[in-house]
């Protein structure tokens, strides 16, 4: 019932070492990136399992045996009350303890796109059990006022996040209407920098500082993703799981032969990190 629907991708060589890394992908009404997320985890070397949030809320201990927890992209509950709000509310209400336990024991948490919005809503990115009123970061409606689907380039910053290599460039698509990373005040940004929480920025394809549309949403300091102070919880707006094959890249017909998409490396390293932490 909960097996991922990836239409039977066979294991690629070299993944058996981490195959025991179990990844829980939570889904709910409006989740829509479950296919590519499960595929990325599988090809990255993990064993993904999909679970509905209602099941998880009923039995939070279901999370315990997993090493990776992923909140994939989509429009959870239609984003009717704000991007990621209702799913965030469910996690805050029912899974706060289980998630705190999960991060404390070395589990890896990833939120992509809507998952990033959910993570921001829960406060988990700002440290375990951040009170709602204390929250300092948010994901605002794009400065263009429009949903934007386009490929961008990400640069990994020197951050606490264990599976990003500082300086590496990662071409990935974004597809969101509310991805403008926003902070309550300058102090919050300062704190994020001090804690090495700024993990990913939008840059131009050559790595230089981006403006619209290379930075698609008007994020403060072009921030595309942040991690929590432990470096084990990462949220980002773009979709590395949509750049797995040699043919996902928008300009692959202009590039030379490619073995795989750059997004796969992101997932492979995340799985390796989770595997190492679990040992």
């Amino acid at each position: 019932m909960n097996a991922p629907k990836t239409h039977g991708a066979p294991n690629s060589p070299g993944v058996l070492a981490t195959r025991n890394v179990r990844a829980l992908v939570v889904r709910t009404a409006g989740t829509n990136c479950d296919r590519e997320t499960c595929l990325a985890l599988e090809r990255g070397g993990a064993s993904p399992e999909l679970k509905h949030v209602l099941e998880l809320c009923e039995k939070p201990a279901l999370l315990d045996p997993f090493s990776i927890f992923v909140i994939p992209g989509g429009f959870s509950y239609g984003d009717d009350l704000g991007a990621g709000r209702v799913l965030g509310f469910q996690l805050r209400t029912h899974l706060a303890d289980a998630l705190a336990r999960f991060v404390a024991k070395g589990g890896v948490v990833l939120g992509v796109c809507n998952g990033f919005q959910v993570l921001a809503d829960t406060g988990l990115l700002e440290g375990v059990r951040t009170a709602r009123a204390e929250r300092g970061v948010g994901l605002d409606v794009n400065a263009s006022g429009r949903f934007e689907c386009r490929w961008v380039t990400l640069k990994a910053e020197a951050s606490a996040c264990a599976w990003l290599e500082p300086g590496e460039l990662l071409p990935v698509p974004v597809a969101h209407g509310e991805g403008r990373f926003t902070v309550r005040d300058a102090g919050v940004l300062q704190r994020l920098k001090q804690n090495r929480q700024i993990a990913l920025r939008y840059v131009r394809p050559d790595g230089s500082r981006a403006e619209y549309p290379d930075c698609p949403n008007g994020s403060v300091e072009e921030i595309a993703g942040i991690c929590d102070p432990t470096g084990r919880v990462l949220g980002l707006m773009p979709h590395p799981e949509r750049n797995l094959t040699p043919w996902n890249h928008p300009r692959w017909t202009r590039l030379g032969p490619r073995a795989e998409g750059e997004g796969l490396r992101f997932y492979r390293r995340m799985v390796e990190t989770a595997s190492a932490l679990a040992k």
Partner: protein
Amino acid sequence: MSTVTAELDSKPRERLPKAWRVEVFRRPDLDDPDGARVLREFAELGVRAVTSARLGRGFLLSPTLARASVERVVHELCADPVLDTVRITAPEAAPKIGHGVRHRVLVMRKPGVMDSVAQTIERTLSRSALAALPNGERVRALTYQAWEFVGEIDARALEHAAKRTLANDVIEDVWIDREDVHFTLPDDHAVRASVSVPLRDASDEELLRISRQGCLSLTLLEMHAVRDHFRALEREPTDCELETIAQTWSEHCKHKTFAGKIDFQGERIENLFKETIQRATRELARDWCVSVFKDNAGIVAFDGDWDVCFKVETHNHPSAIDPYGGAGTGIGGVIRDVLGVGLGAKPIANTDCFFVGPLDLDEARVPKGCMHPKRILRGVVAGVRDYGNRMGIPTVNGGVWVDPRYIGNPLVYAGTVGLMPRWAAEKSVQPGDVILCVGGRTGRDGIHGATFSSIELDESSSVVSSSAVQIGDPITEKRVQDGLLRARDRRLYRALTDCGAGGLSSAIGEMGAECGARVQLERVPLKYPGLSPAEIWISEAQERMVLAVPPEHLDEIRAVFAAEDVDATAIGEFTDTKKLELFYGERCVGTLDLHFLHEGTPRPLRSARFTPRVVADPGAPPCPNPGAMLLALLRSPNIASKEWIVRQYDHEVQGTSAIKPLVGEREDGPGDAAVLQPLAHSRAAIAIGCGANPRYGSLDPWAMASAAIDEALRNVVAVGGDPERTAILDNFSWGNCANPEQLGALVLAARACYATSVAFGTPFVSGKDSLNNEFRVGDEVIAIPPTLLVSALAHVPDVAHTTTMDAKAAGNRIYLVGLTHGELGGSHYLGELGLEGGRVPRPDLALAPKQLAALHSAIRAGLVRSVHDLSEGGLAVAAAEMAFAGRLGLDLSLSAVPTAELSADHDPNATRLFSESCTRFLVEVEDRHAEAFERALAGRDFARVGVVDASGRLKIRGVKGQTIVDLPIEELAAAHQGGFAG
């Protein structure tokens, strides 16, 4: 219309809503993109006095909640602690208003119109302890928009602007500077009983009145058939029965014109559809056609044990009245078609094509009762965006066409491709199977949609037909999809279909056609009480599917849907009575013989003829400044970039995208077709493309249809699709076919479809027609141009062997494949010159298929670097797009262009640059592959016409060698981006 207006200072006593009122605004120091958009749209209407506009999200909540509960709900659910500020107002108290605000405009959906945000609040609170009410009472919620304006503007001007930008009268109420919004459900005084309609002794006049007043859209001949049927039964029909017949016999459901008897200029046609479209498919007998014409969508074999299916639908009339809701439910409906094909397919791609009036139309020339084409286009784009993106289906292909004849009757086409295991292709219903209704609840939404879609629009359509408009809720549909595909894989049901036009009446009438069905209408879950049995039966409330479930699986399938939070209710069973039996409680409210229902439609003989318009052939006048003409063409609405639309659609979700809608060095080149790789374990792929040429239609419907097929095929072949494995779909939108000339044009177009489909070996697998697309302004009836949209779904053997249209590298050769004729009729070149007439392009059916096969073999062998088809604007536009998309130069010589013999009135340069002749491509080939490429194309019309260079300019030399175009590619790219941008 219920706009309520009052000057702030002379406000009469208001009845403030008996509900907690919450308004969530963005923090004052943050910008407001929604407000900025509204200011722009106000300015377009000449309203410049407003200096600031801000949007508040308004909520009304049950008055019985304690203040502390309301505060918890607001802070936990409604507002973001970083981005928002909140105002809470107690029931019946006057709301707080923003600082410096001069006017407030409140917009709220009419009672009973879908409010999915309110549903989400109610659903979330019912599962949480956040705001419990005593006695288990459910918290009720409604939502509205609160706009706050700064600036001196009189109320009348504000009302004028507000009604054009902030709200839609059809589904929303507007309050200007008043606060007495409602907190009510729809009026609860409908008659619950079913009534009988006296018909047996009615005169012809009375029969027509019954049809008209009941919005049944039945003709006198059909009313006679109904009357005679009930005379024989010696009783009067009930309203449920009459409605069922009207829905089932509607043009929308029955396609009685296309499948009807026609006298075409003395020639008898028994069934146009069977003799043309269906005949082509039958004769071609392709073994990869798995299921055609009999189900919700056509199914073709894909790869291994997997099939793909494709369906395209129109949603024209609802979109004319409510572009956002109409387009949203259009895409929602076609997605359900795919969910309901066979035993269900997973939607993997959407397409959308829009045909609208001129986007720069003078506001004063917008006919009464119509919206400005700009507003319609923005609305339909937003509708497709919000539905498709939320469903998580990539929207990968489409188009926009502009013509003044679409002003009053825009066309909105939405398509969905699905992926399914081979075993799920067939369905069957067994007597004894439970009728399970799954998904959304039923309300008064969309009553008479099927019959409404079959009538001509007029000025009052937006008033009388408001109930025909539905609002979609994509997340409910996503829930249904999640449950359905899980139930499918556990094989818990035997058959299913979607509730589309005609609602339950059509869905169950169709599923039970071979056996019979008995339905208990009182069991259907309702959004609110008070619906009559007939309303329940024909409501077109969205996001519902009907399943035939063997009784032994009932508990298990209910559990599957419950896990997804989806209502699944048994509302009856399929029987072996060959009758449709409707009950409300104990009372029988209708019994219809299924044979009469499905076969009893009278088949009148319709008269058709075609009188070609006599317009002098302007040939191809010489072009004094081809560069300027090229820039004008690039900016023209059919050719200009649609990037503002494409970027709003998520075309990457599911991670299968290989060739995207926009390609090239800066991803601004208009790709010919999209390519997806749907299965993770296989390199097989699909290409999706389309073709349409409404400008050709009124000159030559035969050529128009044939050229549309050619265009769809060359688009998919250009990216690597296999022409031998391409399926096509026909979607006709036509004027009123009671007019013999309109019907005559349809006959010609359908015959062209037959001939062209057979010649190319590409079968039709599905299609739909939408007739009666006319608009009445005063005494004048404006019919749309005959419009055939052809959609193509091609098999791509290997995703690695696909091509894009952008030039790749300096030094490569450019070939032109295909023969250029003096075919400027309906061309964009003549359009720019304001000239009519001329010979319309049509493919050479003997040569074109060989051309496609040869090019495909070259692409498959990896011999080409880029391919771009020649269509709107001809060679000049294709070359410009190829150059700027690759950010490279192109140097072409027209003297090399393979050309048919041209008459003296065809200027040799203008014809070569701008003719829109079919089956032509520009192809880029590396020197090292040139010989092999030429071998692959041997015997076909093709020639080397130039070279790719690093100059960054497009240079074209005329037939005498002189340079006639020399433009920097950035100027070409800017012109292409210079059209309407939302």
